[in-house]
């Protein structure tokens, strides 16, 4: 009787594996570049033709391979990166499955040129559809070059699913960009049909790499966001709220130097941004996460685009807190300055081995930067007020156009929008007092009798408890009339009736602001802040300006108002000097 079950020949097994690992040209590029990085390359050059369908060539100046290794690496699950299952827990290299090269080789015509430091002459291995055709000597410098031609020539079903040349090129470029952002200290080059798509010489830090890719005017909108907890260390660059725009978002996440996708972390970052940006705006973000050995599983998927963390909630909180505390600082405020330096962020030193520099050295790197924030964060978490002119016990404040407050600081000028600033103050105050039971209501000698529409009256009835805790004591009076017996008294120019009417109108009919709130408390606090704050055009006394200024800097997010607009715009002495030609 003939045997039904057969052990597949390696070639077939590799073709099947290729189906998982090698999906399209970009996966080839990704696998080969990751190999180059694992080989501690300082320079990775990629050349593609016809979107990688005709040819992909990846060369590096890494450690290279000797002849034996060069042959062995064509076997499936041959890898230099792990030796036993236990090693998987602490993966620090990109590749480890030993699948990449044989899988790629199985579906293409592949040339591997390599030499390591110990051999005098290099090796060229020619593979065709997984079969090694020849092995020959080759003079070359240290490093490895892999050339992949006619991808999927022997897998027509897969070839059919490839997209257009331009689409495949775009995906390759995107994959390269991710790897380049993760490894700023490595030079990356990408050419497509002899056209240069990426030309990224090695730089010191991540922000500089962002600048290389998207321009310095983009990287200068980034601020540092970092947070550490329980050995989890997050360093990141996020966009200043005033620079964030709707449209294409650049969000890149890396764990231990490996790019990955995680929509829930982008959402966590957005939670951190809450109330500082308008609805629909998509701030850029780059996060570099270092997690302790054994807390991340990257072996979820052969392409390793997704990773699994043991503590998702902790990671999400890390991201949210990092963003939130970045937005507390003065660096996050809007500015008139045109020549901002991007903040230095060193993300990865060397491509193998334990990567995270100790917190101390990393801190030292921040401190050494030219544009390091000069005031440390307040230990109890409140943002520190900007240092004012030395010698002045109180800020010298001027009101301009009855709308803005000008303050002199050690580094230049702050322009504060009095309405936005007061909105932030009132929002935080009401949110805080919701937690403590509610805001104090001032009883009125002449209660307000207010006529509303039927739907507005219904909204008032629905919200009665919350309105009361916001300081409004409201009593339905029958029909379309309500009586307000007590109101909050946030400042001496407060027009309670108008604020109440406008609040109810906005709460009933909705608005962008109302929609951006996450719950009823926020909704009430936001509308109250918006309608109750000191208006533009209100003349303020020196003491009132001082009080507003002090209160603003006692809030968590003094630089951003609840509509996602800036409360403060900075003008540095450097920028003033430039404008006056003093530099």
């Amino acid at each position, binding site marked *: 009787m003939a045997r039904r079950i057969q052990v597949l020949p390696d070639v077939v097994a590799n073709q099947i594996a290729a189906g998982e690992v090698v999906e399209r040209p970009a996966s080839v590029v990704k696998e080969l570049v990751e190999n180059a990085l694992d080989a501690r390359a300082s320079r990775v050059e990629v050349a593609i033709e016809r979107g990688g369908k005709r040819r992909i060539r990846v060369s590096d100046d890494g450690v290279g391979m000797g002849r034996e290794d060069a042959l062995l690496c064509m076997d499936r699950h041959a890898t230099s990166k792990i030796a036993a299952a236990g090693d998987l827990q602490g993966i620090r290299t990109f590749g480890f499955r030993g699948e990449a090269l044989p899988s790629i080789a199985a579906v293409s015509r592949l040339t591997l040129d390599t030499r390591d430091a110990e051999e005098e002459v290099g090796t060229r291995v020619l593979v065709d559809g997984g079969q090694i055709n020849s092995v020959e000597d080759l003079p070359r410098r240290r490093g490895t070059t892999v050339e992949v031609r006619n991808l999927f020539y022997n897998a027509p079903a897969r070839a059919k699913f490839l997209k257009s040349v331009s689409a495949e090129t775009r995906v390759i470029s995107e994959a390269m960009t991710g790897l380049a952002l993760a490894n700023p200290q490595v030079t990356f080059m990408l050419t497509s049909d002899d056209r240069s798509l990426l030309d990224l010489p090695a730089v010191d830090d991540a922000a500089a790499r962002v600048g290389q890719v998207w321009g310095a005017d983009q990287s200068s909108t980034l601020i540092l966001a970092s947070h550490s907890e329980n050995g989890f260390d997050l360093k990141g660059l996020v966009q200043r709220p005033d620079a964030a725009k709707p449209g294409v978002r650049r969000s890149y996440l890396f764990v231990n130097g490996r790019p990955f996708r995680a929509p829930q972390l982008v959402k966590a970052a957005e939670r951190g941004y809450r109330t500082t940006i308008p609805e629909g705006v998509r701030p850029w973000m780059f996060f570099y996460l270092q997690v302790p050995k054994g807390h991340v599983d990257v072996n979820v998927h052969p392409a390793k685009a997704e990773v699994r963390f043991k503590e998702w909630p902790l990671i999400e909180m890390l991201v949210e807190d990092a963003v939130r505390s970045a937005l507390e600082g003065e660096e996050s405020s809007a500015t008139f300055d045109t020549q901002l330096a991007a903040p230095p962020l060193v993300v990865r030193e060397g491509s193998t081995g334990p990567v995270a520099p100790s917190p101390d050295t990393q801190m030292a790197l921040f401190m050494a930067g030219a544009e390091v924030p000069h005031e440390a964060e307040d230990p109890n978490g409140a943002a520190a007020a900007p240092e004012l002119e030395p010698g002045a016990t109180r800020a010298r404040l001027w009101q301009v156009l009855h709308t803005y407050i000008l303050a002199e600081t050690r580094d230049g000028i702050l322009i504060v929008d009095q309405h936005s600033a007061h909105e932030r103050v009132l929002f935080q*105050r009401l949110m805080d007092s919701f937690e403590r039971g*509610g805001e104090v209501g001032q*009883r009125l000698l*002449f209660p307000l009798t207010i006529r509303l529409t039927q739907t507005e009256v219904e909204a008032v009835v629905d919200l009665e408890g919350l309105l009361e805790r916001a300081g409004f004591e409201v009593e339905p009076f029958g029909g379309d009339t309500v009586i307000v*017996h007590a109101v909050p*008294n946030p400042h001496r*120019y407060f027009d309670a*009736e108008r604020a109440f009417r406008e609040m109810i109108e906005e709460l009933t009919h909705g608005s962008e602001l109302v929609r951006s709130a996450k719950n009823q408390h926020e909704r009430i606090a936001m509308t109250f802040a918006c309608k109750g704050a000191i208006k533009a055009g209100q003349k303020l006394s020196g003491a009132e300006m001082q009080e507003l200024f002090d209160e603003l800097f006692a809030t968590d997010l003094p630089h951003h108002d609840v509509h996602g607009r800036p409360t403060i715009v900075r003008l540095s002495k450097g920028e003033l000097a430039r404008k006056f030609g003093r530099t």
Partner: protein
Amino acid sequence: MNFTITRQNLHNGLAAVSASIPSKTTLPVLSNILFEAKEDAVWMSGTDLDVAVRVKVPADVKELGRLTAPGKKLQEITRELPEQPVEVATRGEQIELKCGRSNFKLNGLPADEFPSLAEVDFSEGWTVTGKDVNGLIHHTTFAVSTEESRPILNGVLWELREGSMRMVATNGHRLARMGVPAESGGAPSADFIVPPGALQHVQRLFKDDDTIEVARSGNHLGFRADSTEVYTRLIEGTYPNYDQVIPRDNDKVATIDKKALESAVRRMAVVASDQTHRIRLKFEPGRVHLNVLTPDLGEGHDELEIGYEGEELEIGFNANYLLEVLRYMPTDEVDVAFKAPERAVTIEPSGDNDIDYLCLVMPLRLLD
């Protein structure tokens, strides 16, 4: 126009008038003072269009005439002049000052450009004493509203009645009301709502022993004594029925030493919230406890011995409102009357006197 005047008289006249000149204006003539040289005296006028001040200053007039000249500059020059007669004359559209060897010419503007002051017929009006009017102004004006949505409350209500007059001011959170007996001299009853700025000029310019004539013309009110006149625009509208909201049934009355209460409240206010200024007063027989608890800041406690026999009651207050009211109370002891924690509290001078003065403070809601 040509007259000679003592430096002191010129200085006094300018000081009286220039306080009514607006510091910033888009109408240049309002920065000027109008000089009118008449037979035996010179009249000086200044206005910001809401309030006008006009004073008569003795001078030796040689040539009649009118001219406006920059008020602040004239005041600064006059302050620095020696104590010698000053000769003032027009030179075309300039005003010339000569004093000893000093000589100044300042650019003026034609008198025709100066807004004409309200024409008030003082023969049909009221007569009041400076002492009465100033007393009412002093004790009530502090309570006007600073919020501009209800212009009526930005003014002081002045009620003139047969045999008495009253002033009332409120911002809806607290109220001050004072009355004095007054002879109307047969003039009809009237209610005016007067901007507090005008009343401050009245208080500043009229002395207690002045007899002031008051008369109305259209929506303007005029005040006049010998050599001084103040005119003001009146706020139009109906003042809310304040009398109706003053409680008559506040049956719990505490008699408290004003100074002791003031300083205890001031101490509590230090720890009160910057926004609400909320403190709590808990009354019990013979004693009041003052408490303040501000999250993020801390707490304070104080107590005073008082005359009180009623039941225990706790009321929340804006400390600033209490302090304001206490500041103007003219007696050493005050009667604080109340009924329930959410009802209006009245404060009146205590003891045997005929002072008709009542302040009212609305409480803050207590949340527990």
